[in-house]
């Protein structure tokens, strides 16, 4: 490894002179990056663009169109026909409860697994990690029957419980990975001063683990805010449906109202994009931590 580094260092020194004439290459590089970046976000641009058009304007050959007048009315219709306020509230409620409880449970588990000595902690942690392999879809059928028997079909708990359970492996992984980097001496001195275990966890460990907890919450927010298959299976009436279902309301009676459909899609897409852009660093950290250790 060191020999390798030394070798490339030499290469670097030899290569330095050639480097000077690279603005053209840099320009090409940026061009290529821009083209692919546009391909990646084009859909978002397209959604927003079409959400401001009149329904009649969609046909014809243009791909992006400058609206003659901005049809804010599409958003009004989206709110009304798509039940956006109700579904949005449901989503907020279900996701908030999920990410808070998941972070809380993962912190307790993480503390017990990294800080306390007990016989079964290795197998127990490995067991929870198995959850990363189990496909969510394989639990859909049995959980449907289970919730049916427990009278939980069409109840927010039928989503919250599995959401939390499936959040645990990755959340635990990130939190315990982070805990391992915190020196134990801080807690030891707190215990000396008469602090209980719960005191240590919530007054000392929790504030110090904030970055990891933030990462976990944001990752879980994005996956459960967008979750569709479980919601589609376990919710049968509209009472607790989540935001993705707003778009499903446009399959029947209002299916020809394209403007409102695009407005709904924009409304569904934007919250996660904004949250993601605000917390890009935390997300990237979580994903790479999860990947490398998983």
């Amino acid at each position, binding site marked *: *490894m060191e020999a390798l*580094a030394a070798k490339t*260092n030499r*290469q*670097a020194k030899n*290569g330095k002179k*050639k480097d000077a*004439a*690279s603005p053209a*290459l*840099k320009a090409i590089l*940026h061009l290529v*990056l821009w083209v692919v970046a546009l*391909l*990646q*976000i084009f*859909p*978002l641009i*397209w959604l927003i663009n079409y959400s401001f058009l009149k329904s009649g304007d*969609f046909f014809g050959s243009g*791909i992006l169109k400058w609206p003659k007048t901005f049809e804010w009315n599409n958003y009004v219709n989206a709110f009304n026909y798509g039940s956006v306020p109700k579904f949005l509230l449901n989503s907020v409620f279900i996701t908030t409860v999920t990410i808070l409880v998941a972070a809380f*449970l*993962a912190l307790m*588990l993480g503390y017990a697994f990294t800080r*306390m000595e007990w016989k079964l902690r290795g197998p127990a942690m490995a067991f*929870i990690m198995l959850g990363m*392999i*189990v*496909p969510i*879809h*394989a639990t*859909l*059928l*049995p959980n449907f029957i*289970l919730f049916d028997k427990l009278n939980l079909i069409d109840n927010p708990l039928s989503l919250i419980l599995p959401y*939390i359970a*499936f959040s*645990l492996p990755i959340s*635990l992984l990130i939190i315990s990975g982070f805990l391992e980097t915190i020196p134990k001496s801080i807690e030891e001195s707190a215990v000396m001063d008469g602090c209980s*275990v719960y005191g240590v*966890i919530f007054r000392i460990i929790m504030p110090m683990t904030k970055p990891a907890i933030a990462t976990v919450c944001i990752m879980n927010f994005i996956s459960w805010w*967008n979750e569709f*298959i479980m919601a589609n*299976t376990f919710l049968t009436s509209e009472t607790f449906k989540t935001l*993705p279902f707003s*778009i*499903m309301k446009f399959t029947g009676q209002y299916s020809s109202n394209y403007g409102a*459909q695009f407005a709904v*899609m924009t409304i*569904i*897409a934007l919250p*996660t*994009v904004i*949250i*993601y852009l605000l917390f*890009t660093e935390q997300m*990237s950290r979580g*994903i790479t931590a999860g*990947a490398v250790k*998983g």
Partner: protein
Amino acid sequence: MSNRITIFWLVAPGFMLFLFMVCFPIIMSAYYGTTNWTGIGAYEFVGLENYQKILFHDSVFWRSLLNALLLLAATLLIQHPIALLFSIFVMHAGKLEKWFRAIFFIPAVISIVVTSKMWVSVFHPNFGMLNKLLEGVGLSTWKQDWLGDSNIAIWCIIVVVMWQGFGYALLLYYAGLQGIPKDLYEAAELDGAGRVKLYTRVIIPLLSPMVRVAVVIAVTACLKQMETVFLMTNGGPANTTQFIGNYLYKTAFSSSLYGYGNAISVVFVIICLIITVAMNKAFKKDVGEF
């Protein structure tokens, strides 16, 4: 002693929930998988009949696996090399480095309901964007009912899934590149053939642990593919775009073969476990040099 009680209270809530919501359902599936239950009314125990049928007489099940394999091949041979290349490009993007990284990831954070709906309208035979585009550049003869054609639909699905996962793959490789000692990069200010050599001979080989991780993730992700298919084609036309997740769902809820669907579910979990364990074993041998 009190320590034990504390450990119990710390571990029990999360552990029990996990047990109840993830493990218990699989055991339930294994039980229902041995019955011919339709979801309502009485049912009989049929032993391993369902499992036998899945493995030896169910062409849709095997088609689902084949589709996962096709998706995996496309992911590893097309998406990952491009993502790796672009992770290097992004590193050299200067001030815009973070922005590019963020933009490439955006499709992965948009709700699948939205992206799927959107792609359905891109592929729409009458007013879809793709057909419009082909007409615009004078290739009208190429116009298709993209998702309605049993030979083409699976490739459309593959394109969509690759598009969605591109940023994720890029991010993994980007993180791997960040983990390589900095002095190697001082040598790698983008330029000319010397740099290409540096990357192909030094940096990319050093990245191999991350490549292994990315391969493991890709394999499980391809196997678990469901949502995009569910929303775009629901496995059709004629099951040519079927994936296991969607197949078991459809079997249980649309065809009312609840017992059989559960059996597929169990086989699905077993396949996931075997593949993950096997890959971890195979790759673990030569990790540790990094």
